[in-house]
């Protein structure tokens, strides 16, 4: 197994190059991510994402991405989009899966298919204020990976473990983060 024939579509050289560049100019590693969320009607909002900052400069996605956020009909809403908590699952699955691909590339493991089934348990007593003992957020999150790759089970488990270790969203979800909300 050599890295030259493995192609998961991840430019590991560029990622390692960034790590080298950060050693010389640590300030360029400081990034800021942004989203602008506008209320539409009811529980429906639209979120736009286009700019961010990093590498010491203002940055922009190749286009503006727009996301509808809403709640399903079962919540007496209009279901224009997935719920905020489902975006969290999307973010976690997306982050971990990107990590699996990147780590596999670096370890010379050719992936054929990767699927993460992400689920989270939540008790609505929390957000409805019906039981002060119940938290608003998830009581637990599960991610179940189905990976088909040129590697044995231990190597695949190591890929998935390493991806968690290096995942931003996994860290955000497993550790407390200071959140400051203000009104301008």
């Amino acid at each position, binding site marked *: 197994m050599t890295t030259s024939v493995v192609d998961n579509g991840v430019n590991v050289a560029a990622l390692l190059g960034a790590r080298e560049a950060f050693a010389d100019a640590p300030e360029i590693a400081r990034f800021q991510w942004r989203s602008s969320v506008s209320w539409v009607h009811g529980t429906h909002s639209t979120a736009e994402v286009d700019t961010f900052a990093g590498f010491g400069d203002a940055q922009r996605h190749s286009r503006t991405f727009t996301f509808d956020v809403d709640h399903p009909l079962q919540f007496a809403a209009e279901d224009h989009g997935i719920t905020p908590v489902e975006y969290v699952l999307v973010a976690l699955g997306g982050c971990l899966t990107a990590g699996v691909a990147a780590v596999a590339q670096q370890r010379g493991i050719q992936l054929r298919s990767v699927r993460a089934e992400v689920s989270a348990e939540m008790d609505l007593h929390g957000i409805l204020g019906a039981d002060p003992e119940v938290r608003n957020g998830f009581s637990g999150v599960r991610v179940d990976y189905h990976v088909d790759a040129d590697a044995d089970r231990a190597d695949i488990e190591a890929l998935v473990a390493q991806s968690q*270790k290096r995942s931003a969203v996994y860290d955000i979800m497993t550790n407390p983060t200071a959140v400051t909300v203000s009104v301008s």
Partner: protein
Amino acid sequence: MRHATTVVIGAGHCGLAVSRCLAAHSVDHVVLERGEVAHSWRTQRWDSLRLLTPSWMTRLPGNTYRGDDPDGYLSVPEVIRFLGEYATGAPVLTGVAVTSVQPLDQGYLVRTDRGAWRARTVVVATGGSAAAARPSVPLPPGIPTVTAAGYRNPGQLPDGGVLVVGASASGIQIAEELSRSGRPVTLAVGEHVRLPRTYRGRDVLWWMDASGLLDERWDAVPDLVRARNLPSMQLVGAPRTLDLDVLRRQGVALVGRLAGARDDTVQFSGSLANVCALADLKLGRLLDMFDAWADRAGVEAEAPQRFAPTAVPAPVLSAQLGRGGIESVVWATGFRPDLSFLEVPVFDRRGRIVHDGGVTAAPGLYVMGLPFLRRRKSTLIDGADGDARALTAHLVDHLDTLARRAS
């Protein structure tokens, strides 16, 4: 002002090993020691501690353990006695604290609380564990805390629950001892290195030593930053395995890494399952390596075995501080060198000394006893021999160059 060709700072096993090598090369030198020989062993170790390495690995240049229990583990008083005997005849000045080291045109000015020294070369052997590292998690007042360096025995702490932060060598041993004292113990577990005490009938350190793992060089290891920052091994100086499963069965509550504190609540990371999975997988790879080496080398040993994955308890994400919850905290979050006396531009932007296998960019200035300095075993007593010999050879070459330039 006094003068020596070489000033060695610190009379622990590293400084004494360098002194032995310098003497063999007839380099006149002095070893400055702020306290007594083996100062840290006298002042920064808990009462029940024993070396994690078997006694036969206590090998220094010109002196190896010769007691009657080579497979045992030396107690702290035994280590102090061993180093005290090893120091006999070495030019050690005790009770001399170095306050600064500054570069001169040729060599260094070493200031101490008992006068200054000029030296062509300086070997800093104050070690990688001069200061206890602790995270900047603010705890409410009234919760006594102690670091692994300040911990002596359970009697030091109040009755009631104890949070031990860190599950490497110090943390697991202290957690076990506190749990045996009858206190409810919570152990916050981050990344760790799980090891059985013995494998296939032999001490796991025997496998590491014999297979060549401990001899891996700093200039050949793929990711040196990572290798230098690995947590210490989950071992106790006794013929038994002490890992998270043992602690859990003993009643220690395992939680994730300490993530923060808010008011009177401490918060733990939800990553416990993954750090355990990482450690289990890593242990499996290590044993695979041992088995493959044993096959190649024709080693006779008991049959290979594999250990069950760590049993991870149901997640606990917070705990109450005080009021019948956690009444004291032990920081077992590692150690770091304290090189604040070194007024030489050899540090990176985060204040860590930059060196290439112990050789700094400042000519004639060397450092010893740091993690993976030149070999994986550099932090073990057994690592001092090779490192001291190599750095002494470099130092003698440097002196020869200076002498040629002067003539």
